[in-house]
Every structure is written in C-alpha cells, then in structure tokens.
C-alpha cells in the first residue's frame, strides 16, 4: 500500500494516484507536527484495523507495516534490517518487524523524511498473523505508553461463530474503547462511529466496483500492482473519512472511464498496449524492487485481474460492508474476515472463484519468506487450485522488504517459464 512516489523517476501517474499520494503525505505531515499540535496517535496493524473507531476519538493511526514497506520502496530497509539483526533479531523472522525496529532505532524517521511521533497507545490488533503479537511485545519494551490488545480468533473451520463475535465485541467494549477514551480524553461517541462506518461502506462499494472492473477484457486495472495503490487509503488511515469517500468515487470514475474506452491498466511505463495474460496472484508483493517486479509482468502483457493481497485489510468483494446499524459487531466481523484470518480451504475457494469469475489463465503465487501466515501451505493451495480449475499454477519466491531475497533474474526466469506454459496450454487447446 504505497503512495505513488518511487525511487525511479518518470512514472506515469493517474489522477487518483496523485490524490492518494497527497492524502498519505498529508497524513504523515500531520503526524510529524503532532508534538506541536498535540495530536495523539495509535500504533496499530493493517489487518483488522479499527480505523473508524480510532478516528472517532480524533486519534491518528500509525501502521508499522506501511512504514516498513514505504522504507523498502525508498531503499532504506536494508540498513534498518541490519540494525535489528545486530540487536540479535534472527535472519529467519519477519522483515517487517526488523525494518520497523531498525527505523525506530535509527530515529523513527518516517517515509516522508520527517520524524514520526512515539505512540500514545499501542493497539495490538492480533488478526491473522502470529508475528503481530511478538511485534508489539517488542515495541512495548521500547516505549512507555499503554498497550491494549484485541485478540481476534481465527476462522479455523471457515466460519465466524457467535462465540467468536461475542469475544471480539466484548473486548472492544471492555478493553479497547476504555483505552481509547483514556488516551484521547474523549467519551466514546457511537453516533460519530456510525457516521464513519456509513462512509466506510460507501467507499467500500466503490472499491469493489474498481476491483470487479477487472472482469472486463481487457482489464482496465492491474489488481495487484495497481491494486496496492487502490487499497492504500481504505486499508490504512482513511477509512470512514470524507477524503476516502471522495477518493474512491473519483477512482471508480477514472477506472470506469478506462473500461468504457476499452483501455488496459496503467503500468509504470504508461498504458498497457495489449493484454496477453490474465493472472490471479496470491501473496504480498516485494517492495524493495516493486517497480522492477511490476515491469516484469507489464513487459509480458501480463495483467493481474485479482489478487489476495488486496484482501488482507478486508474481503469487501465477498460482500462484507461496515454496518452503521451494528457498529461493534460489524467491526468484529471485519477483523475476523481479513484474508489471512481465513482457513486454507476458504482461501482455496476464493482463488478458484477468482480464476473462474475473472476468466484468468492461472494462479501465480509470490511466496514471501517473511510471512508464514501467507506462505505456509501455499504449495498445497497451488495444487488444489490447479486441480479444481484445470488452469496452470506458477510459483515464485521473494520477500517483503529484505532486498537480499529478491533475485530478479530468478523471478523473471520463473515468470517467463510460467507464461510460456500458459501459451503452450492455449496452443494445445486450439490444436
């Protein structure tokens, strides 16, 4: 979920990208000014984030994963990771954690080059990733602020039970809200939260329309590389805001116009001329070589028509919407519904549906060394999806923010081989 700036110059930008960049830059600028303005902030995580609730107390969210990936896109993650490893953090573990810790130890200078304020509250939303729990235990040792934990149960059998919902709602009511009240000095205002949730739902409608536009041929969007820009505001600090509603309305208009004109997605080198391959991608992208990675696909005319990474902050395309009439229940269901909180059979089902609904040529998995939540089981998922769809699967490996695990030649080679396999299958069908 980057903003649109990248280390490499001369990138073609859509209007929505410029708007998104400005939104995110303004957010970081506001955080940087916090010591003077008195704005208070809450460090929390992307999956299952409680942005509307946090903002209803006039608190600002800070998302360490976003800081880490932004650092990677600016070529800073290598040094930050080295700082953490020198402090004893294993080379085996999540590089988001190490990048974040390294950034903090290096002065906590954020992606825009300005110092981020220390947290006023650590809100551990433990959703879909065991590492989150350890991450905040580590941060807790570095700061003196209060910590509140929201434990979100895993959908082990693919459903949300009443017991799970009740557990999360009770924690929101009895732990999280009192902690936010204490830090902000404001009372919980459910009417305000409802307003924000209603705005969330409007933005979510437009996001889903954008994502579903990829059913068209050619697809007017790339739902992975482009998709990470689209999800930026809604997965991070802006859900529930007027700005987010406006952004998604504008984005939808832009994408629908491209669709009407029969245009393909915008790539780093401009509009894609010809869509040759339609892929579904599972797993997060690599951030250290994001543009180079994207270009490998764009050069081959490969468009990602659906991706799972763009669902880590919510599976809106499966019908979920924040519901102002059931504010806390709705937040609880949102937390539990994030992609990495789903069972593997549910994830397989989603992928199969994407391949069928978006008429994709196959599934490509970008397996991330750092992320067991995503990666453990992916080889089996690949085989299952191949078996159920009859479409070929491909597998590449990289990392989130550790440049040592991005081997461009190897990935390019595997990607090209995979695309050739798709072509051969097509040729076999038409022969």
């Amino acid at each position, binding site marked *: 979920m980057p903003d649109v700036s990248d280390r490499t110059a001369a990138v073609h930008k859509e209007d929505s990208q410029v708007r998104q960049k400005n939104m995110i830059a303004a957010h970081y600028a506001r955080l940087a000014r916090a010591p003077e303005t008195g704005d208070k902030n809450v460090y929390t995580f992307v999956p299952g984030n409680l942005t509307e609730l946090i903002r209803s107390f006039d608190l600002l969210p800070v998302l360490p994963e976003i800081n880490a990936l932004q650092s990677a896109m600016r070529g800073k993650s290598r040094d930050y990771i080295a700082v953490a490893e020198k402090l004893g953090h*294993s080379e085996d573990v999540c590089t988001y954690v190490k990048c974040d810790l390294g950034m903090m130890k290096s002065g906590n200078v954020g992606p825009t080059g300005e110092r981020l304020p220390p947290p006023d509250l650590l809100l551990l939303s433990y959703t879909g990733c065991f590492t989150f729990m350890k991450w905040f235990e580590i941060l807790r040792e570095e700061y003196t602020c209060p910590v509140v*934990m929201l*434990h979100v149960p895993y959908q082990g059998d693919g459903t949300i039970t009443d*017991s799970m919902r009740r557990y999360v709602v009770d924690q929101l009511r*009895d732990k999280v809200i009192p902690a936010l009240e204490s830090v902000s000095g404001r009372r919980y205002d459910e009417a305000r939260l409802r307003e924000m949730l209603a705005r969330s739902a409007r933005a979510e409608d437009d996001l889903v329309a954008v994502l579903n536009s990829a059913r068209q041929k050619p697809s007017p969007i790339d739902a992975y590389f482009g998709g990470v820009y689209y999800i930026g505001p809604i997965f991070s600090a802006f859900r529930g805001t007027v700005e987010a509603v406006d952004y998604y309305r504008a984005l939808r208009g832009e994408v629908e116009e491209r669709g009407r004109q029969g245009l393909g997605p915008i790539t780093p080198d401009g509009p894609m001329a010809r869509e040759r391959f339609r892929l579904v991608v599972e797993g997060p992208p690599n951030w250290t070589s994001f543009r180079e990675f994207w270009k490998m696909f764009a050069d081959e005319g490969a468009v990602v028509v659906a991706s799972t990474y763009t669902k880590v902050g919510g599976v809106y395309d499966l019908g979920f919407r924040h519901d102002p009439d059931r504010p806390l229940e709705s937040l609880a269901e949102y937390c539990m519904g994030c992609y990495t909180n789903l069972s593997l059979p549910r994830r397989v089902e989603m992928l199969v549906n994407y391949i069928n609904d978006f008429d994709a040529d196959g599934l490509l998995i970008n397996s991330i060394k750092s992320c*067991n939540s995503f990666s453990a089981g992916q*080889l089996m998922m690949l085989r299952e999806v191949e078996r159920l769809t009859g479409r070929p699967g491909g597998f590449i490996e990289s990392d989130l923010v550790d440049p040592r695990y991005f081997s461009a030649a190897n990935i390019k080679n595997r990607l090209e081989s995979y695309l050739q396999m798709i072509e051969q299958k097509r040729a076999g069908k038409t022969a």
Partner: protein
Amino acid sequence: MNRPADPASARVRAVVERAEHLYRDRSFGEVRAWKQRTGSLAIGFMPVYIPRELLHAQGVLPVGIMGGGDDMEIIRGDAYYQSYICHIPRSTIEMGLNGSLDCLDGMIFPATCDVIRNLSGMWQLQFPDRLSRYFDVPQNFDAELGGSFYRRELESLSDELVRRGARALEADRLRASIEVYNQNRRRVEDLFELRRREPWKVPTHELHLVLRAGQVIPVEDFTPMLEEYRNAAVEDTSRQPMDQARVLLTGAFCEQPPLGLIKTLERSGCYIVEDDFVQVHRFMRGEISAAGDPVDALVRAFLHDAVASPIRYIGDDVKGAQLVERVRQCGAEGVVYCSASFCDPALLDQPMTIRALEREGIPYTAFKFAENNGQFQVIREQSGTFADSIKLWSEV
C-alpha cells in the same frame, strides 16, 4: 576391577529402552493396540498445548504428534513446504500421507503459530473425512473475556468429540481426569526435581525419551513409567557426578531436537537442569484445582497458571522474568537457546528474553536446529566452549 552391575541400572535401562521404542515407533503400535482394546477414539494433537483432561474424560486418547525426528525419510513432505519453513510440519504431513497416522480419528491443531494454524487447513484439504480441528485459545486473560471465550471453545471441542463418537462430557469424570493428570504432573515434577538436584542421575536424553513416551500411551501407563524410572534412577549407584556446567535449555517447545543433539550437549560438558521439551506435560505450573465446575477449573488454569511460553501474549509482566526465575530456581549457571530454525515464536521472543538475562548477568549462548539434523560437531564446540567459560569465569 569391575564393579558388580547395579540392578537399578538394568531397571533404568528397561524403562529407557521401552520409551525409546515408543519414541521411534512411527506406526504408533501402542495407539493401535489401545484402540483395538478399547474401541475408543484416539486424537492426535500438535504442540504445544491442549487440555488433555477434557479428552481423557470423554474416553479419548490424546496422542502427541511431535514430528518425525531424525530417522524418518521425508519423501513427500518437502513438496508441501518452502525451504524457509520449519521442519515439523513436513514430517507431520509425511506421516499423514504415508499412513502412519491412520490410527488416529482426527487431529487437533492448537494456536501455536501460523504454521501449525495453517497446517489445520492443509489437513482439512488432505483428509476431508477426518476430524481436523483448529483449537483457538485466548490471548486475553481476563476471566470475563478470554475466560468466557475459552470455556465456549472447550465446550465446542467437547461437542465435536461427541459427534465423532466420544462419550458426553460429565463433570465427575472431568474432575477425575483432572486428578489423574495432576498426579501425572506431580510425577513429572518429581523427575525434574531429581534432575535439578542430581542431574547425573537423570540425563536429559533419557528424560526426553520418557516424556516423549508419555505422548503416545495412556496417562494411566505413563505415570507408573515415570515412577519406575525415577525410583530406579535414584537407586542406581553407577551414576556419579561429573564436573559439568548446569544449564537451562530453552526454545525447543514445539519442534524437538534430535536425540543426538541432546546427547551432544550433555557430552560437551553441560548438565541440562531445566528445559522446554514436550512442554504439554508442564504447561501448567502446579496442579489444577478441580473444585467447583471442572470446565471452569481448566479455564482458570489456562488463564492464570500457564508457563510464560512464547506462544502466549505477555501483556503486563516483564518479558523474560519467568525465564530468569527458572534459572534461579534450577540453579542454572547459564542458558542455552536451542530453537528450531524458522520458529517464529521462539526466535521473535529470544532478543527480549536475552535482554532480561543480560540485565541479570546470566550468560547464554544460542544456536538453531532442525529435527532431522545429523551433524552436531559445530554445536558441540559451541556448547563445550560455553560450558568451559562458565566453569572458568562465571560469577552466577
């Protein structure tokens, strides 16, 4: 002149040989025999913790599955996992695929980490006809919040077992089962106490085998095994102290190191006087009070009496405080971090607990292993040097 053989030595050897047979029997013959004898369910569970009392009360044999160790060839399991994922799920999948686990009526995958969690889904895909249950536990330890949730999880698990053919959960039976496991915990603790006091009497590679045996036999057989081993070890006069460093070994609470690695550490000059191996046996500190509602007793124990394992959220306490306390209690002179490669809970925890050790001036060393490691020379040199440094310079 040779001393006459101590009859207690033979008794120790007999227990250890039986335990090693159970440890190496990947066909789970003992479980199969138990099932044939009783006609009841046997359910496997992955590390670290499940409430075995509940299964026991419903007539179910809980069978601890701790991977394939170092003597199992992985033929298909590696095709299920990338190189950067730990080893235990590979050998577990391998055992599932090669029929070793056919004797089990299902598997429980507790909330240990993302790999074990996802393995539950893989099991659902691979073995759709068998019970494959993810067992969630609360990370909120408030009785009204996490406690209520956990109680509902226990009830839900119990209902699932009934649907699979187990008998219904009854309060009296559960109380009795809690008492059976309390007795077992006492015997386990007795052995650990003996090892702390006279580590030469209870070599850890033997203790490990005995604890592993307890994973695959009924608790009613395991408790006498512990008693027999302890009694024989106490009486065995052939076991004499040596000038070794006393160490606490931590980090191996899920995937277990190969037996050869434990022996290597001992031969390099370390008495392991405390460890995390087969942690389910010691996950609860002390006994569980079965007074009142026995399901609530299990809940209370989980919330308040569990060890500060890396799989539990430490919200208020100081990270590493319990490790330091354990070092003091067992009289260890140093800590050996022995964690499985790519083990997120252990490796993410390690820097925090190391800080706690450093604050107290407790020496430590760290290395990683995989359950199928076959070469230990480097580790032997490392642990030998660590033991030497303790003997020469430690002020702990």
